[in-house]
């Protein structure tokens, strides 16, 4: 008779958008699925599943990473920020304000990842030049905007 096996769960502790989180999940789960399915944070998007489009970008310990390429187990003890976590007390983050003001949003599917890549950049370099900005978002594909208004929005953001 065929035996049914199931994976054991793992326990994770990390901070998510500033709040401590403790949960149990399967070790073969991608961070992307953990966020979208277990935690219902659907602002993080899936566009390619192979680390090419950047739609799934989140911040892990101050770095922008592709959550489709990271397994849940790797985040134990980390600090994670998603698009849902960057506005404070109901106020939009200056990057979010500027994305609106400069018309940087069309369909919006790439936008959470785009904003988080910019967020990681601005947190380590407050006055990046245009080339640095382009480099920072080169891993985030956008088919709608042609990037120009996105670059303007980032360039004009003062933290």
């Amino acid at each position, binding site marked *: 008779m065929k035996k049914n096996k199931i994976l054991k769960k793992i326990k994770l502790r990390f901070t998510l958008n500033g709040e401590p989180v403790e949960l149990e999940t399967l070790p073969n789960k991608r961070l992307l699925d953990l966020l979208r399915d277990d935690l219902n944070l659907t602002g993080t998007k899936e566009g390619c599943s192979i680390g090419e489009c950047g739609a799934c970008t989140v911040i892990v310990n101050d770095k922008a990473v592709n959550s489709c390429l990271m397994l849940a187990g790797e985040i134990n003890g980390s600090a994670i920020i*998603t698009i*849902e976590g960057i506005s404070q007390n109901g106020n939009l983050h200056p990057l979010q304000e500027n994305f609106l003001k400069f018309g940087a949003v069309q*369909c919006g*599917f790439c*936008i959470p990842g785009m904003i988080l890549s910019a967020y990681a950049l601005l947190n380590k370099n407050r006055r990046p030049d245009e080339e640095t*900005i*382009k480099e920072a978002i080169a*891993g985030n594909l956008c088919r709608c905007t042609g*990037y120009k208004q996105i670059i303007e929005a980032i360039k004009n953001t003062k933290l």
Partner: protein
Amino acid sequence: MKEKFNVIGKPVIRQDGKAKVTGQAKFADDYKFPNTLFGVMVRTKSTHAIIKNIDYSEIENDKNIVTIIDASDIKGAKKTGLIRKDQPVFAFDKIVTPGDVVAMLVGVDVDELRILAKKVKIELEELPSLTDPEKSLDPDSPLIHPEFNTNLVVHHPLRKGDIEKGFNESDYIIEQTYTTPHIEHAYIEPECVTAIPLEGDKGIYIIGSIQNPFTVRRIVAEVLNFPLNKVRVEQAELGGSFGGKDDIMCILSARASIAALKTKRPVKIKYTREESILESYKRHPYRMHYKVGYTKEGKIKAMKIDILADAGAYCSMTPYVTWRSVVQATGPYEIENVWTDVRAVYTNNPYTGAMRGFGSPQIVFAQESLMDDIAVSLGLTPDEIRRINGYRYGSITASGQRLENHDVNLMKVLDTACEATNFREKWLENEKHHNRRIPTIEFKDEIINKNLILSDREFVEPEDTWKKGIGLAISFRGSSLGAEGIDAAAAYLSIQSDGSAYLLCGLAENGQGMKTAYSIIVSEILGIPVENIYYLELTTAHIPDSGPTVASRSTVMGGGAVKNASEILRKRFEDFLRSQWQLTEDDLIVFENNKIYVKGKEKFSLSFSEFTALAYKKGICLASIGWYPGPKIHWDEKVGQGKAYFTYVYGAQVAEVRVNIVTGEVYIDKITAVHDPGKVINLLGALGQVYGGVTQGAGYAIFEELSKQNGFPQELNFDQYLIPTSKDVGEIVPIFIEGKDEFGPWGAKSLGEPTLELTSAAINNAIRNAVGERYFNLPVNLEEVILKRKLRPGDIQRGSL
């Protein structure tokens, strides 16, 4: 015509923007319903084959399978299609292209289902495959759909004047052939849809990444054999479409619906990127043969055009797409004698349909490349040849239509683009420095014998590596569907008693910012702030069918309907106030800044919400349905003559590039895009359309291509199918010339597609200006520049394989 606007033409922040920057906007996969099952597709490895038998015995009893769906579960139409019913929901008689699906496994665990999908045994009888469209019409080629007796999908002829006479009157004749490849839409959000059975015999509810809810409804109703009112389709926030989420979403919605009704549970289908590229339709590859005759002064006397489009395995929107090509194939030039044939044929390749540009990017690439060659052959500059032949007010198009009743701004966009870029001077300067080939050195035999070490002068000097080029392209483009399609749209506007409003149009938001543009139109007419307008979710139950959101229809048609709905209310409100305030017909009632007042009689003034409260109490209907039927147009199929579109837009783009003659790399320094879209409704949105369209056009020009091996797409994800990134395109400078037009809201027409159609031709002309060589085959990528051919995976068999 109103000349001063309060909101129109200003930069307005998109209404759906806040939800999109905070991650709250709900795209198709963000909707979750309790008890949902998932569908996973079963495909074959075949390109063309007869299906003999499908055997599920190995997986049928697996605990991961809730049910298996195939063509035998279909109660209504087994084959569907927007124009021609040739596409099966599940293949049952034949496989005609590698994306074809024979069955869908339904269960909870997608990963397990994917493993099981490989265990379905499909017995096939292989047929010879047909992947070269040039061979489609050969008598001994296999028929893709034998029921139609031919592989010809459509033939659009156009005959004007006397072509032989035209060539006889010409001093010179040039003949060229151009080709363009399959292009993937590459919306960043892959396809996703959920179908939910409604209890109590209410039918089915579908929500997904759907471009046209009404076409999905029609197809699903046909497949389920349901009346239209039992299929309720809602568009989730759409993660890009560009024409691409239409037919494929009809099919996926039908599959999900069948499974949902069978299992009585919600069924979701979510494609991976690989499945998306494998099964979804593409932009048509064209092979275009142009023969042009012209005088030594540069006047074009005759143009003979023969175009072959690869429709792939299914018809889809091919007849409409290729129809636009036949109307616009000569470019915006007045030519007395024209003979055009556009044919589209079936092959076993991925099917092709609507994609941004809709039959124009291909022909603009060919015909604008050709114009430059005519200019060069006569020693004229590219702008001169276009001035000699280009449309002006009253010009007659190839289809015999007189251009009138709107500003024919072709010369104006051309002049503006040339002035803004100092075009002619730069072009002439670059012409002096042609040197495409890698520089050579001359040597005598003995050097080789005694000196094996290369000296400095044997390397390419860095300054010889980069060549600068500037190139131009211009176009005219018919607005909306034209004489081929049904053209009308509806809008619903309902003002609440507190002065806030609901708005909905039957055309769909595809990310281009239409909801905001429509709200601006209401705001302009009723004077209420855009923020007070709530744009309703588009579902087929709440608004009349307004046809597809394709072919630059949304502003002119949808905008027209919204304007009509607003004007109906405005008229009703004015009538009410005239009697309420006892005004005369001469009193001017003004609606602005959320107020209504009488000009010069300031005591008659109400805030908009005071007014609505009053009107509500007095029993005035605060809602309206607007309707905008497209103006009359007509077309004679046999000779391709008639009033093809009710109006046109004009554009000119100038590309400035650098070409590395050692690596073949083309760097796009700057694109200046001058467009007459009619009235600009939202400046921020309009700018975004230009940046986005030009960038897609640049990808089309220099790197995008979906290659195939025996019909199988070879680039199935973004690691291989390359679209432009933030680093790939230099500056883009949009300039708007707002021509007047009697159609569309205040003459607003279209912009999204013209921005894309010009770019590849402008870039190709700039590359020629840089290196002195003409390229005929898109994309003009590294190998094309250096080798004049493509290096494709599979083109050359490697020895090690």
